[in-house]
């Protein structure tokens, strides 16, 4: 979907600005490393003057302390691999805070992290989950061809979205939604 068609969301938390991009997965398990690969490619594309408005994180998995970092930003983008899409397909979904009482252990999901950010630190950013369809998650550090293409394509989209969001932060406008297929 394009920015022009995007649905406008609720006003951001007062005072918050900037975008946090978290790519997670295991780079030793083939396409499972798609999220970290997108973030690494995005960092190469980002203009240096945006540095104060964008933070990039790569991780094997989501961890509780990320909730504190998230509480300082206006929006967060989670990038993960999925077997529920065809290889190379990319889907962006809006997500909200949700308390899931039982599944929390060493592993956390985006919704839980958002809930922790809200409940523990009093602020919850707008959030999207970007899912990348994967082909192989065998041992190895090489992405499959379809996923390699998706990484490049998605990094370009993210760069564009972050640029628009940065402009909107400056103008005090509400964020536009980027949910949909990429």
């Amino acid at each position, binding site marked *: 979907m394009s920015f022009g068609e995007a649905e406008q969301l609720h006003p951001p938390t007062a005072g918050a600005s900037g975008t946090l991009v978290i790519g997670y997965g295991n780079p030793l398990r083939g396409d499972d490393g798609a999220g*970290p690969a997108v973030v690494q490619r995005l960092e190469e594309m980002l203009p240096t003057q945006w540095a104060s408005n964008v933070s990039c994180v790569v991780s*094997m998995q989501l*961890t509780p*302390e990320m909730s504190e970092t998230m509480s300082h930003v206006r929006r967060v983008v989670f990038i993960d691999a999925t077997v529920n899409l065809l290889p190379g397909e990319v889907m962006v979904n809006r997500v909200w805070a949700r308390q899931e*009482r039982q599944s929390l252990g060493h592993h956390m999901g985006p919704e839980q992290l958002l809930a*922790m950010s809200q*409940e*523990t630190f009093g602020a919850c950013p707008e959030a999207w989950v970007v899912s990348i369809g994967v082909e192989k998650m065998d041992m190895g550090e090489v992405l499959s061809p379809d996923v390699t293409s998706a990484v490049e394509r998605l990094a370009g989209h993210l760069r564009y979205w972050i640029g628009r969001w940065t402009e909107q932060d400056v103008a005090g406008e509400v964020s536009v939604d980027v949910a949909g297929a990429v």
Partner: protein
Amino acid sequence: MGKTITIEGVTRIEGHARISIQVDDKGKVQDAQFHVTQFRGFEKFVEGRPYPEMPSVMARICGICPVSHLMASAKACDDLMAVEVPETGVKLRKLMNLAQLVQSHALSFFHLSSPDLIFGMDGDPKLRNIFGLINKRPEFAKDGVLLRKFGQEIIALLGGKKIHPAWVVPGGVSAPLTAEKRETILASIPDALARAQRGLESFHEVAEKFPQEEEVFANFPTMFAGLVTPSGGLEHYDGTMRFVDENAKTVAEFSNPKFYSDFIGEAVENFSYLKFPYFKPKGYPEGIYRVGPLARLVVAERCGTPLADQELASFRAKLGRAPQSSFHYHWARLIEILYGIETIKKLLEDPNILDTRVRSRARPNRLEGVGISEAPRGTLIHHYKIDDNGQMRWANLIIATGHNNLAMNRGVRQVAERFVNGHRLNEGMLNRVEAVIRCFDPCLSCSTHALGQMPMHIELRGPGGELFDELRRS
């Protein structure tokens, strides 16, 4: 004919596990097992890889505590090269290892175990979880998150922000510490210490409420094992491996890691992928021992830092020199958080910590190397064999959770014997059986080298397979 109760998917631990409890016709517990149901096998797939890759490859065993494997692996590689790591390189490795200890213990105590302590073992499961905790004790929950962040940020500052930084390398570390980073970490120490002390105060408020759990949470005499300094102090990076009996009397020690196999045997059982290490001179399973925070406080004479030693004195005054109940892992974990923060400060204030000589270089000079360090959950051993080209021929890893496997199994049985009524299941019973496992804070990804978690399902079935009772958590 008896029945078997199965707890499928133990919660608030790392990885896949199942607990089964066998009861007789009268509902009395006959036996219980803690099954680890996942397998990955890093030891096999590293064969043929160049040995210098091992620290960064082995770090991938666990996304939660990669630093621990990084340390043990790098030390095994140091041994292969037969080099002495420069003094500052050692100190910087210790710094990262302690940061890992603090963040891991914070997660275990504040977020995984505290819901049981704050709401009670029989507390409403709708509340007895991290979000219930946040609602009831928001500052406590925040302290947990920020202590974990304290440790993670030190790791990121030292090693860079990418996944599994290649900062800890064979021979030392790849880059020295800068003055700016040192000041950044030092500035965060007072805040972290205050949070750790508040955590201890909160623990003391509730700890007295669990006399039954203290009595049966893996409360039996065993040996304990862990590293100590040359003078017998608490140690996590290097030193002498000490085994003590249930009275804290030393029964064996070795300083050269290569002797580990003289003292530690590994047994296997057909119900678990997790191996069962045991103290070889006593045989299996009589050679049961425990590792981890409680064991370290038993094997060590002292912590060696003021606040931790003060708390250790209270610990020993109340519980004795060698507490046998694994319920006390919680208190020990909090003492180690204090020790970790104090020692991080001490290391940073060392005048040589900014020295730029942090790495020794060499080709492999031995075909076999062993590295031992203390992970948050206990002693971690990496043992490698290479060929003349420096390629891995063989690896053996003995992981903290494995050392505790015998004790966890006996602990599950002990709790089940006290709390399980074989005719009817209830949430409090189930939770206690799990909670004894959580005392050890097992990391099953590390111990079998896999990742994952699933919801819980317990079934109580009769001898013909008929379902008598069932509990399910989604």
